[in-house]
């Protein structure tokens, strides 16, 4: 159950494009800041292979200038309900 969060910065002038493309990715939640051109991106996937798919989808977004990993989690839950 990998969960990661990033800060996403866009190339100059491409911020709205970046947000739009991020919002189209599966398994990705986007939280744009209200007053700066930065967004928090939280990814969550079921296993390593789908995590790889999310990762490549993010790498394919050319509007991203920089994606900073802030938080990473990958530990299978014991018994979840």
């Amino acid at each position, binding site marked *: 159950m990998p969960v990661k969060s990033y800060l996403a910065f866009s190339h*100059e002038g*491409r911020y709205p494009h970046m947000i739009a493309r991020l919002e189209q990715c599966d398994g990705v939640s986007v939280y744009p800041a209200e007053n700066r051109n930065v967004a928090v991106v939280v990814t969550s996937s079921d296993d390593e292979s789908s995590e790889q798919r999310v990762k490549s989808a993010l790498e394919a977004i*050319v509007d991203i200038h920089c994606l*900073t990993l802030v938080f990473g*989690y990958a530990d299978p839950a014991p*018994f979840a*309900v």
Partner: protein
Amino acid sequence: MNTPVTFFQKYLLIGMLVLLMAAGVWVIGQALHEDDPDRAKTETGRMTTPPLKTTPLYQEAGVFQGRDQRSRFVDLRQAGTRRLAEYYDRRAYPGAPPYIPHPVESDMKTDFEACSSCHENGGFVPTFQAFAPVTPHAAYRNCRQCHVPQATETLLVANQWQTTAPPAIGRAALPGGPPPIPHGLHMRENCSACHAGPAAPVEIRTSHPERLSCRQCHVPAETALDFARPGEQP
């Protein structure tokens, strides 16, 4: 300026940002600890290698039982490895009584004596190789009324229970300001039970356990509304 950035450059930038953040955290930490002469004595070493004792179950090592208040603070500075995710794993919802994750000696008693020997003051329990979490409501004596052990992991029938996310943390109104208390205080009046000491989840452990008057600075968030004069909208 739309020049494509190579992945190497991207990672370089990431690395720089992470360094910058670490530096920022260190600077903030320094600032918070400036007025603290005991900081150097903090025994973080005990966090990773707790002292092994051969005392039996329920005979707790008693790190909190110092005679003078000073040693209490030093002990409160011990850092454990318990995470908030584990803390919430033991509860049906934020605020629910946690189940008992370890075997219990007797099922036949209300168990105040046995439970309180570890959970009243906390400390390292050799039997479980762990720091015992401290109860925030030590006055209640019928522990097993609310806290039950788990005899099995399976379920009779699945449950479609969902709960809300736990309270978000670290939401100070101003940068560096004291965050308000994001949860109810009923049965959780003793802040240091969960926010100080080696059993406190690392994410919510206070950096300044020596300041015992928590609610001098941290106040409950009772309403989401702003002030408004009678008859006016906020």
